[in-house]
């Protein structure tokens, strides 16, 4: 019975990849030679030694029910090679552990660490890892959070080493790296939790207090006096935690503002809450006069809600900073002498000094800035520069820490470490850019400060004047002035609209990380695209195949893909990606030799083949370059394929336009914006791209300095510049623009410095952002106008003593409610859907036409 259930479940799990011929563990198609595992008495085939080892580990530990419960196949991730496992031992060093391991008991024997797990695809993975870890000798507790993909492990330092725990996870086929939770995650989580809690207290208190307040409003004297008093006392008791605890951030903010000798929005907010509450308490104790517990609680709740929404939007942006820190590896392989070194030792990157020699294997990240002293390879600097093409490196070339070595082993001499590295410098620039506020935001701050200051002075004057006229009424009239003009509407007008817009945009894939971003984006006159990578996919893709002899197109592509199948080079990967997967099988390839920055050579069915630059391929057969080369545009990369008898085919590769790039440029121009393109790429390529998209102002071969000057020049002519970029090294340029927008697909680091991030990588999200921003500005203006009109009417009345505190409370609530409701319109406005809809209709139409062709 057991095995039948298991069988159906097993075959269901491997169903996606043609039942029977798929790897039992990972579901990939089986190669000719398979590796067997005995599972519950049945022999199962796996595709490689890695899967076999992982499956065997799972079975040996009695965890076979993983295969029954999993709903998603694991990511293909062979068990880590031996040297990777050795590397894990480094995590036992105290200086490396300091960052992320905490003592869980007083004696320092029980340790706790958070692990970031790679490769978790379904809930069965969670179970598998938890079970495996819990059975390790010395592990006290292991809990995996499925939602965040993180594990918290607690172990006895005397009985088991951290490396053994990491190795157990690696043996199951998952990646585990220690994660410094104390620094960012916990602090963020605590803040979020306390904010949520405050919001809950305020909201819950508000609802209850409303229940006591409404009878008083509608009964209007029909209630007995002591019943009314009871309700007031109940309201007081429930408002107390709202005012003392939930509203605490406002008091803290007001106190900070006062200490800095300026008056921000928090001062009148705090004063309004305290005054209204104090007056209500006074009235309750006296048993006479108006109470506004309901208004106070609602006011606190609405303001907290706005702050909570803002905070969670910012929290998402901070996660990107995590990834930046992880760019450089934790350990490096240091050589004792060079040249002629025999000994290599693994050391923490923190102990590297300038002048050290470090060996870097293919696939590893470069630990520090340095110069290549030996080896030929190419590196992927895309995370640092946004440049997607691999950069060839040979002896004498500079390397930047954080880049990834792609093909050959390299030896480098370390030049700069720690705070002196390029990466650290970029981070510093980003930090500095973040501390500088744009002029518009400063102006808004100043105006607000004067307004609030004036309001407080007015309240004081009213108090004094009325004390002279009629001391008995002075206090209530001052309270009425403070409450009626309490800048709720004013202080809610902007944040409520901004947070509503932030929420709307977030659902549409646009992350707003700065308060001023929407306001500035709405006013932007120039949209400058920094880098071609913002308009193109930023990766190589196969554009065309030109067969040169009788061989058919598919066959040439299959041969090329077969040769390149193991290549990590972007060109190789593009060719492999373009070939349908089934062509890989059936053609045997051997003796593949990699000639860096030239190409590959190998034998396919006994035939020597070369793929690479035309010159490299010509060297194999000695024929003249094909004429077809003349007709290929300069804007594409050409790769040739040939054998010993002659040319076989030319492949053209290039960087395709992002989807809807054309639509974006056209719509921006239709909105009356100027679109510019700045790029560090070759001028010809930039001009070509600009022409294709209809961008009039384009500049190629621009250095960051050029870009900065270009943006400054625009700004001096009064332009409001929105900059769209994707790399880290453009952070200064992004910061110079009034509003910066980063694409999440490029360097994730840029997220931290950009004012906005397009998370969906869809360019039309930018159009949505522009439309929402304009609408937001409109709503903000309406809100401010409303607040001004309301104050202009209510304030004189209150000053003259015509407004009772009750009317003031109702007026204040109604005014802030009107503002919030107006802002909430931003949450569901169909206006900005039009572009997306229209373009998806166009896209559909295109698809259909293509199919018909």
């Amino acid at each position, binding site marked *: 019975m057991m095995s039948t259930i298991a069988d159906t479940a097993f075959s269901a799990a491997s169903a996606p990849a043609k039942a029977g011929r798929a790897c039992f563990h990972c579901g990939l198609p089986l190669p000719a030679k398979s590796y067997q595992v005995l599972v519950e008495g049945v022999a199962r085939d796996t595709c490689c030694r890695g899967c076999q080892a992982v499956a065997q580990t799972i079975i040996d530990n*009695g965890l*076979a029910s993983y295969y029954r419960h999993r709903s998603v196949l694991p990511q293909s991730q062979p068990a880590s090679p031996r040297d990777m496992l050795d590397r894990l031992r480094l995590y036992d060093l105290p200086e490396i552990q300091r960052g992320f391991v905490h003592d869980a008991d007083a004696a320092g024997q029980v340790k706790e660490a958070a692990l970031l797990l790679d490769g978790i695809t379904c809930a069965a993975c969670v179970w598998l890892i938890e*079970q495996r870890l819990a059975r390790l000798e010395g592990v006290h507790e292991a809990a995996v959070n*499925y939602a965040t993909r993180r594990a918290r492990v607690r172990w006895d330092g005397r009985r088991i080493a951290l490396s053994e725990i990491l190795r157990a996870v690696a043996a199951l086929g998952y990646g585990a790296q220690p994660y410094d939770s104390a620094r960012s995650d916990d602090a963020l989580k605590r803040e979020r939790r306390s904010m949520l809690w405050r919001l809950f207290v305020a909201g819950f208190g508000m609802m209850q207090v409303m229940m006591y307040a409404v009878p008083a409003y509608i009964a209007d004297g029909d209630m007995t006096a002591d019943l009314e008093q*009871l309700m007031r006392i*109940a309201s007081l008791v429930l408002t107390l935690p709202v005012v003392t605890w939930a509203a605490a951030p406002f008091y803290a903010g007001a106190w900070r503002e006062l200490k800095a000798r300026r008056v921000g929005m928090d001062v009148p907010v705090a004063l309004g809450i305290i005054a209204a509450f104090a007056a209500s308490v006074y009235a309750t104790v006296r048993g006479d006069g108006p109470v506004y517990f309901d208004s106070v609680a609602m006011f606190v709740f609405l303001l907290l809600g706005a702050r909570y929404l803002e905070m969670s939007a910012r929290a998402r942006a901070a996660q990107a900073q995590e990834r930046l820190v992880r760019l450089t590896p934790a350990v490096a392989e240091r050589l004792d002498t060079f040249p002629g070194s025999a000994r290599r030792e693994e050391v923490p990157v923190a102990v590297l000094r300038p002048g050290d020699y470090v060996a870097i294997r293919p696939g590893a990240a470069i630990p520090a800035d340095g110069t290549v002293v030996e080896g030929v390879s190419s590196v992927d600097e895309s995370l640092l520069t946004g440049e997607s093409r691999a950069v060839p490196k040979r002896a004498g070339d500079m390397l930047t820490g954080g880049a990834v070595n792609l093909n050959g082993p390299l030896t480098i001499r370390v030049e700069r470490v720690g705070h002196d590295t390029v990466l650290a410098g970029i981070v510093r620039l980003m930090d500095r850019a973040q501390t500088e506020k744009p002029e518009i935001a400063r102006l808004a701050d100043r105006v607000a400060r004067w307004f609030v200051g004036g309001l407080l002075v007015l309240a004081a004057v009213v108090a004094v004047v009325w004390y002279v006229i009629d001391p008995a009424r002075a206090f209530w009239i001052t309270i009425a002035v403070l409450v009626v003009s309490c800048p709720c509407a004013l202080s809610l007008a902007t944040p409520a609209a901004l947070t509503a817009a932030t929420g709307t945009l977030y659902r549409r894939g646009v992350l707003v990380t700065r308060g001023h971003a929407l306001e500035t984006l709405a006013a932007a006159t120039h949209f400058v695209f920094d880098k071609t990578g913002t308009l193109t996919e930023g990766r190589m893709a196969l554009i065309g195949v030109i067969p040169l002899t009788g061989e058919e197109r598919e066959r040439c592509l299959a041969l090329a893909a077969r040769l390149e199948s193991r290549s990590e080079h972007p060109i190789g990967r593009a060719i492999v990606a373009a070939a349908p997967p089934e062509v890989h099988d059936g053609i045997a390839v051997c003796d593949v030799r990699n000639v860096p920055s030239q190409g590959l050579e190998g034998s396919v069915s006994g035939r020597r083949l070369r793929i690479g630059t035309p010159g490299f391929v010509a060297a194999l057969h000695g024929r003249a370059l094909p004429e077809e080369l003349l007709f290929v545009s300069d804007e594409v990369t050409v790769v040739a394929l040939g054998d010993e008898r002659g040319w076989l085919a030319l492949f053209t590769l290039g960087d395709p336009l992002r989807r809807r790039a054309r639509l974006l440029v056209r719509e921006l121009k239709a909105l009356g914006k100027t679109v510019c393109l700045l790029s560090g790429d070759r001028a010809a390529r930039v001009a070509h791209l600009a022409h294709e998209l209809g961008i009039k102002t384009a500049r190629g071969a621009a250095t960051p300095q050029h870009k900065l000057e270009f943006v400054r020049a625009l700004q001096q002519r009064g332009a409001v510049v929105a900059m769209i970029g994707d790399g880290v090294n453009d952070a200064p340029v992004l910061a110079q623009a009034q509003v910066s927008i980063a694409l999440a697909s490029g360097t994730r680091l840029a997220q931290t410095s950009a004012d906005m991030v397009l998370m969906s990588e869809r360019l039309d999200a930018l159009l949505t952002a522009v439309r929402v921003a304009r609408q937001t500005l409109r709503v903000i203006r309406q809100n401010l106008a409303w607040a001004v009109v309301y104050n202009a009417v209510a304030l004189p009345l209150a000053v003259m003593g015509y407004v009772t505190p009750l009317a003031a409370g109702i007026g204040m609530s109604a005014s802030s409610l009107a503002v919030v409701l107006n802002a909430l319109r931003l949450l569901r406005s169909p206006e900005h859907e039009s572009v997306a809809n229209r373009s998806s209709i166009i896209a559909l139409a295109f698809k259909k036409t293509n199919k018909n062709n």
Partner: protein
Amino acid sequence: MDILYLLIPLSVVLVFVIGTVFWWAVHSGQFDDLEGPAHRVVMDDDRPHE
């Protein structure tokens, strides 16, 4: 109407009780992982713990 003299204080007490329960739920991590526990119940162990 006399019942109100009992019900109103009672409702205040209830609010605080509910607040405390929510406080406990948030602070003991009940909302940390909303998906995992649902799957965890149905997975059992093949081998008895030794």
